[in-house]
């Protein structure tokens, strides 16, 4: 939408010498407009759906712009389906996972980037290789282990699994970042008599805060969105996470699209806003710092 206005802007206020924008410029703006609509459109439609009454949703001609507006779907999911339980479960699991992932991952990344470890690239290669394992290959055996330990239907089983799944990404991204910090800083601290862990927690970690926040966000999103393990390992509303809750939204006689849309908006809007705020950091985190402005 803002791109549409950009195109108009561009045409109304030409540079000092009047030139009609060349055809390939127009083409680029059209492509850009298309990319934005394609990326954001489905979610905007989901938002519009969430505030339309069922009667309108079932009518022969859909209304792009919601009229009349209703909040009954939001009331439904919290009062009728106790959706807040899923949100609480997801929040507990996700925040604990993110914290542990950052703690273990950053310490490992620091050791690999900074300390004298023989065969560090073997470790990094191992971690990268493990991250390619298909998750379906571990869900069965883990279920057997989990039931032997009596860990089914607990938060801790999900936390431990998400921790291991998130660690490769955290370690790799932070490894790359720590390497970019000048070594002289460690050496100065070491001359002052600081131990490795002190250097890490007092100097390197505070210096890397932007990278740590971004990695934490990536970890958070991955854990928040995970579905298969949550589906397999939890069976009651006291431990199921949001994706499982939404997947189980089915009516007896019809699909409650309005309620589903409302639930989607509730759990996705915060993520989308966070992602838009941190977008620059996320893009450089995902692509190893290679995308320039």
């Amino acid at each position, binding site marked *: 939408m803002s791109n549409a206005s950009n195109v108009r802007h561009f045409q109304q206020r030409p540079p000092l010498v009047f030139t009609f924008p060349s055809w390939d410029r127009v083409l680029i703006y059209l492509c*850009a407009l298309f990319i934005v609509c394609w990326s954001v459109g489905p979610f905007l439609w989901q938002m519009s759906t969430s505030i339309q009454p069922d009667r309108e949703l079932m009518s022969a001609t859909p209304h792009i712009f919601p009229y009349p507006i209703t909040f009954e779907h939001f009331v439904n999911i919290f009062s009728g389906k106790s959706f807040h339980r899923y949100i609480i479960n997801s929040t507990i699991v996700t925040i604990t996972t993110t914290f542990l992932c950052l703690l273990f991952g950053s310490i490992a990344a620091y050791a690999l980037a900074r300390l004298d470890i023989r065969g560090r690239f073997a470790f990094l290669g191992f971690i990268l290789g493990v991250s390619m394992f298909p998750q379906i290959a571990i869900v069965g055996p883990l279920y057997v282990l989990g039931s032997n330990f009596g860990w089914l239907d607990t938060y801790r089983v999900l936390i431990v699994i998400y921790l291991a799944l998130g660690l490769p990404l955290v370690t790799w991204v932070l490894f790359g970042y720590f390497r970019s910090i000048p070594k002289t800083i460690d050496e100065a601290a070491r001359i002052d008599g600081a131990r490795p862990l002190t250097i890490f927690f007092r100097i390197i970690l505070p210096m890397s805060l932007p990278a740590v926040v971004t990695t934490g966000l990536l970890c958070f999103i991955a854990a928040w969105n995970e579905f298969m393990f949550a589906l397999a390992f939890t069976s009651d509303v006291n431990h199921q996470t949001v994706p499982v809750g939404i*997947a189980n939204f089915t009516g007896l006689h019809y699909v409650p699209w309005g309620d589903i849309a409302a639930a989607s908006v509730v759990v996705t809007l915060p993520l989308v806003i966070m992602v838009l705020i941190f977008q620059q950091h996320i893009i450089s985190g995902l692509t190893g710092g290679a995308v320039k402005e």
Partner: protein
Amino acid sequence: MAVAEVQNHETTLKRKKIRFSPWRPGPFVLLVPALASIGAISVYPVLLGLWLSFRDTTLASPTDTFIGLDNYRQIVSDGQFWNAWVHTIQFTTASTLLETLFGLMIALVLSERFRGRGIVRAAMLVPWAIPTVVTSKMFGWLFDGQNGIVNYLLRSVGLLQHSVNWYGSPDFALATIVIADVWKTTPFIALLLLAGLQTIPDSLAEASVIDGANAWQRFWYVRLPLLTPTLLIASMFRALDAFRIFDLVYVLTGGGPADATEVLSTFTYKNLFSALQVGYGSTLSTIMFITEMVIAMIFGVFLLRKMREVGQ
């Protein structure tokens, strides 16, 4: 000279520090938490799965004996397995090709400088951030056979005469899943490829312009060959990911209608958790694991060869 002296001094200091370090066990200790979690949650279960694949373990009854390669033999003659296998290959091929192609096109657009580029890039992160379960439900509503807006729009512009029951009919269900996956993942591929494009120095493209190359030649002879390693890496990650697709299928169609969208992950999951056939399910997952490793290795070898070519 003074600098050299300081450096000398520092290295002796460093050596001394390490020798008298209280960290006698060495910095390996710092890797232990991470490696222990990964080992216990990722490596050990894969080995346990391999062991279970030679057994007839079920969770429904106490049977649990060693049966050798019986599970593997049973899979070869299992029609449902081959059905799921075909769908997985179809899905992986279609989604990887489409996503790499569209991703490349988007990356080329975004590598041009224009106003509002930051907004486009930010918008592209939205599909990536949305939980896959939500994506499934969202596409379920968009492509709904009765009230879906896609049917409505296609009918309004005259592309369709009647509403199509997209994921409710065996003919279109897999295609609908491919569309949903393309929507969700293309932006991510585009960002990876954009990163690759931006590492190619502008001077190369400028030089080719001076030599009289047009836009197409500039792309085909200058940027594409240099982008090949990135393209291969991106499509490898995509192929590995597409091969194990689970969430989208499980939530949107559950493998139906009439098994038309059953893929290996959903088939394995159902064997493990609906039929409770841990032994047979583990055999399936072991086969998937081996296939993924083979795909990764083929791409790896290919990539090394390409990189050597570019390097020379």
